[in-house]
């Protein structure tokens, strides 16, 4: 399956991927409204240490520990596409997935007692928003890196 791969050697840490992820996952899909009115959350986060940076989002592992460890089946792998998805209605906020994720991708949503939204590879788009809007081609959407 196609996944999003970061190229840390050209990631410039601008965080426009975060901005466009928020917009894509907002109701309005309008950048100003997404930030000013909606509580949209980015599903990608740029990791940074000096000049080293890269965008991190769910790796959609072929062997997803988060899915295996989920108590309720909220975290599941779409059998057709292979995309690892999260159903917030079934999530009880045990955060086991947060503990087992080898990439540290999943975050807690303490207020709602569940996990925060995770990358869904933008089902409505041919290319995920973070990849399409990266100004330095530091994210690639491909079968393999």
């Amino acid at each position, binding site marked *: 399956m196609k996944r999003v791969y970061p190229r840390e*050697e*050209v*990631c*410039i*840490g*601008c*965080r*426009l991927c*975060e*901005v*466009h992820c928020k917009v894509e996952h907002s109701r309005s899909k309008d*950048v*100003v409204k*997404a*930030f*000013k009115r909606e509580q949209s959350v980015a599903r990608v986060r740029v990791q940074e240490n*000096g*000049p080293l940076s890269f965008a991190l989002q769910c790796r959609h592992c072929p062997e997803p520990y988060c899915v295996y460890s989920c108590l309720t089946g909220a975290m599941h792998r779409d059998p057709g596409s292979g995309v690892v998805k999260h159903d917030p209605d079934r999530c009880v906020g045990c955060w086991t997935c947060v503990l087992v994720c080898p990439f540290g991708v999943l975050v807690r949503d303490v207020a709602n007692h569940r996990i925060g939204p995770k990358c869904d590879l933008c089902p409505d788009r041919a290319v995920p928003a973070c990849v399409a809007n990266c*100004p*330095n*081609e*530091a994210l690639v959407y491909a079968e393999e890196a």
Partner: protein
Amino acid sequence: MLKTYLPARFIVERNASRCIQCQVCVRQCGFDVHYYDEEDDEVRARDERCVACHRCVVFCPTNALTIRKNPLDYRENFNWRGEAIEDIIKQSETGGILLTGMGNDKSYPIYWDKLVLNASQVTNPSIDPLREPMELRTYLGRRPDKVEVDWETGKLNTRLTPLVPLEVPVMFSAISYGAISLNVHESLARAASEAGTLWNTGEGGLHKKLYKYGSNTIVQVASGRFGVHPGYLDAARVVEIKIGQGAKPGIGGHLPGEKVSAEVAATRMIPMGTDALSPAPHHDIYSIEDLSQLIYALKEATNYTKPVSVKIAAVHNAAAIASGIVRAGADIVAIDGIRGATGAAPKIIRDNVGIPIELALASVDQRLREEGIRNQASVVVAGGIRNSADVVKAIALGADAVYIGTAALISIGCHVCQACYTGRCSWGIATTDSYLAKRINPDIASHRLVNLLRAWSHEIKEMLGGMGVNALESLRGNRLHLRGVGLTDTELEILGVRMAGS
């Protein structure tokens, strides 16, 4: 600390109804203009630091930013204009030479804009380059005075000299590694290889990683001799002796120690963190005869397989100097005009020393023709070439090819803010800072450079076709295809061009 009397040059306008406090501008500015006030959840700007490079404007996802010139007016005075006043303020605060970057920004006449091209009408047919072949290939190097053939055996008696083909008569100017990042060097090298032209290392040596692009590389031997060793010469297609630079004729160079990182140091063959000083003259060249010795030393070192170029700044006696350079054995004479750019130069030199390239080119070509030695060297011109029409006009004036530096950098992001000398380039070009240098992705930048050359090639072919010429060779030095507008008799005479209408 001394209170500065300098007002901000630009004002950063932020449209509050659009700003989403995403802080992309904060992270992108190389000059720390934008900052985020956490307490007020607001991004603000320190206007006085803004150089108008527009990185934030281009990257702002909501188009919330505008950079405006500070409308602060001085009392009108033609002599004491803002720039003159501010330069004095800066110097009285620092006591130093004012540095700047890029090329001369003063209003000296741009002769390209006073030259117009011809086109065919009725009496000779124009050519459609999309339907008929159109030749842009150019060969750089020395041509023999005559060709001798042994008619008995059919063999050539004339010893041929190395010629270098260019698919497009536009090369990338010398910009050293250290002045620009390795990513920019790689982008230029890759683009030149793809487009079939040459790029120039500048005087900072050639990074190991780029040796594979050697067949499209001009390597420079400058007064500091940085990075010059047998492998460097062997890797190249052309070796260029840098005598001078259009932005700073008669002046040496100085790469501050902070920019001499481990990689720069290894490439320049100097200790890390030491200042890289290029002397103003070559300490072994005090005459044409001395120059000839270096030219032949380099030819010997490369076994006469590569043309040797000599680059000079366009100065008052350019024609006589060029004649001497050709007679000294150079295969290419490169001339850099007063609008030639730099990573750092004293502002007073950049803005006042040298002559416009158009006049230098016309007089050099004329002089070499009169002396019957024009065939012995190719003439390459540089310094402020902005578009394909400038290239065509240069070729009609007698150039074999041109160098572009600023135009190439603009194609990969440069907004000509003239702050190269600070090393804080927000576009990641004129810097060796590893955080900023990542901003140039060689995949993207080389593609943009190739696009620029492709676009210019198409335009050059259209202009040639219009003139009814199907090969660039046929236009070279053909000044009858040029006419002057708004020029004095003396200017027309030096350019060797007739007045429009005549």
